């Protein structure tokens, strides 16, 4: 009997363990408030009175599916991949957009004496969803601090515990330097990358890109094939916060990342809208363990699983734009694979000389023969 009970106990334990693996993880509790604490420190030194703004980019439902808010519905950014690198680029992209469009933050506060910025800043609740966190430039003890924008999901999924965390703490990365005695300058470049294989003809002929300093437009330039889709600004104040944003471009997603001194703006061609088989393209889902519908899954930023919502791009082979066209250059087509003639006309010279000499000699012989 004891053995039977022990076996039953083992069986129940096994079933429980399997159930824990198979059953959906805990859904987001819509009634629980979320909070975010941004830690802003230079080593151990708190950075005080630094302004932080958070923007609700996409709301999350109970299953963690994300849907852009109205303010960001037409931003052109792609929630697609949710690995850390993609979220870093998403934050960089959205930072330019909120500054270009003057989007009002969902909440705003400054860091306290401990270098902590706490959200919500007042007696209200934050909506569940994906937030963009933007720190403004600040000065302290003769140094300037430029905070890197970042994305944070509230609540945040903890992959180790398998639970949603409703009180989230995040460290704000930053760059810092002494304010120089005399202004120093930096160069910032912008480079556009088109990911539109097979659709290069659909590109706009030109597009305007703005260089933003803080919330102000510093300069607007036009990128086109004529300038190789790139531009360079020099003489910029090294202590200020520079970013770029381009005009809204239909049919493309946009992603901005700073690589060295170059802002790389990548536009990816989106396929025409398909019949709505599942969810809207802007909608994503969250629970990392597959508890949500198959079509869209949003993972926490520390997850590295590929997203299933990455927009398709056309797969037609890229035309060899570097090959000169036959009409303009004489490059051979597949039907006429003849390499260009790159030789000078030297062969007639010895032929002409030889023939000439033969004729002259023959002529002299003929004349002498005639005289004799």
């Amino acid at each position: 009997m004891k053995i039977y009970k022990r076996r039953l106990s083992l069986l129940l334990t096994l079933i429980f363990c399997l159930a824990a693996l198979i059953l959906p993880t805990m859904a987001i509790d819509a009634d629980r408030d979320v909070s975010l604490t941004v830690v802003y420190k230079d080593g151990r030194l708190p950075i005080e009175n630094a302004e932080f703004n958070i923007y609700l980019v996409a709301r999350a439902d109970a299953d963690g599916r994300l849907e852009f808010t109205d303010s960001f519905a037409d931003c052109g950014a792609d929630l697609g991949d949710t690995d850390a690198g993609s979220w870093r680029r998403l934050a960089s992209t959205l930072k330019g957009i909120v500054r270009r469009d003057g989007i009002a933050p969902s909440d705003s506060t400054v860091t306290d004496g401990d270098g902590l910025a706490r959200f919500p800043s007042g007696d209200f609740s934050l909506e569940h969803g994906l937030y963009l966190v933007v720190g403004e430039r600040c000065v302290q003890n003769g140094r300037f601090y430029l905070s890197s924008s970042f994305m944070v999901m509230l609540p945040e999924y903890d992959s180790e515990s398998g639970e949603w965390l409703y009180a989230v703490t995040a460290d704000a990365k930053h760059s810092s330097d002494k304010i120089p005695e005399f202004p120093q300058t930096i160069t910032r470049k912008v480079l556009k990358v088109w990911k539109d294989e097979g659709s290069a003809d659909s590109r706009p002929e030109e597009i305007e890109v703005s260089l933003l300093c803080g919330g102000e437009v510093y300069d607007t330039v036009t990128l086109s094939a004529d300038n190789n889709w790139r531009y360079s600004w020099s003489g910029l104040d090294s202590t200020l916060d520079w970013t770029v944003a381009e005009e809204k471009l239909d049919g493309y997603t946009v992603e901005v990342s700073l690589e060295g001194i170059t802002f790389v703006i990548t536009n990816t061609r989106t396929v025409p809208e398909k019949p709505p088989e599942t969810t809207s393209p802007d909608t994503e889902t969250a629970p990392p363990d597959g508890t949500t519908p198959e079509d869209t899954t949003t993972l926490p930023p520390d997850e590295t699983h590929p997203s299933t919502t990455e927009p398709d791009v056309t797969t037609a082979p890229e035309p060899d734009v570097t090959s000169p066209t036959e009409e303009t250059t004489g490059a051979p087509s597949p039907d006429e694979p003849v390499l260009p003639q790159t030789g000078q006309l030297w062969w007639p010279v010895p032929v002409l000389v030889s023939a000439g000499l033969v004729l002259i000699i023959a002529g002299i012989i003929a004349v002498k023969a005639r005289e004799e």
Partner: protein
Amino acid sequence: MSRGGKKGFGPILINIGLLLIVAALLLTGYNLWREYRAMESSRQVMIRLEACIPKKAQSDQPADTAVIADEPDSAVISEPPREPEIPDYVLNPDMEMPETEIDGEEYIGVLRLKPLGLELPVISEWSYPRLKLAPCRYSGTAYKENLIIAGHDYRSHFGRLKELRAGDAVEFVDIDGNRFVYEVSELLTIQPDDAEELNSGEWELTLFTCTPGGRERLAVRCRLVLEDYGTD
């Protein structure tokens, strides 16, 4: 009987022979004149092209200098090296090669054939009139590592390609100052109708010109051994 009849066909043959030799001399003169024009054209373009290409010294310190109004000269401060400047082609290898216009032609860079002591501008797209000015890009880009350059067989252009040997260094510098150093791997002869052979083998750089007589093409295959931002 006419005078020509008295002397027979001898003088006629002599005159025709002289005409042929004159024609040979004229053709030689024309070729030498074209050779001279090609050399001068490339030399003039090179002077202006090298002025357009950033030098390495500038590239290593991409920062500007700031002159503050109403401040003494001591206020000119160089930017400390902060973030590196990553070449655009590294960020986007699919980009088209930058061009600069000189006398109505678009150039993509400079080709250096050091063993032959030659520095030549490279025109972006080839055509027969352009080949008389400078070597031209036949296809590809240095960034995609499939660049093919065609050149006329003027001695000042590609006429001495046959003197290259395996292991010789060949350099290409683009308009941004990015330097690509190649090493000659092999020389081969290609039939003029064998474009497929020319494009085969995934060579990072191929140079080609006509063989003497123009019946075949001499191709020089090169492997990339170094990429560097800036020029010497």
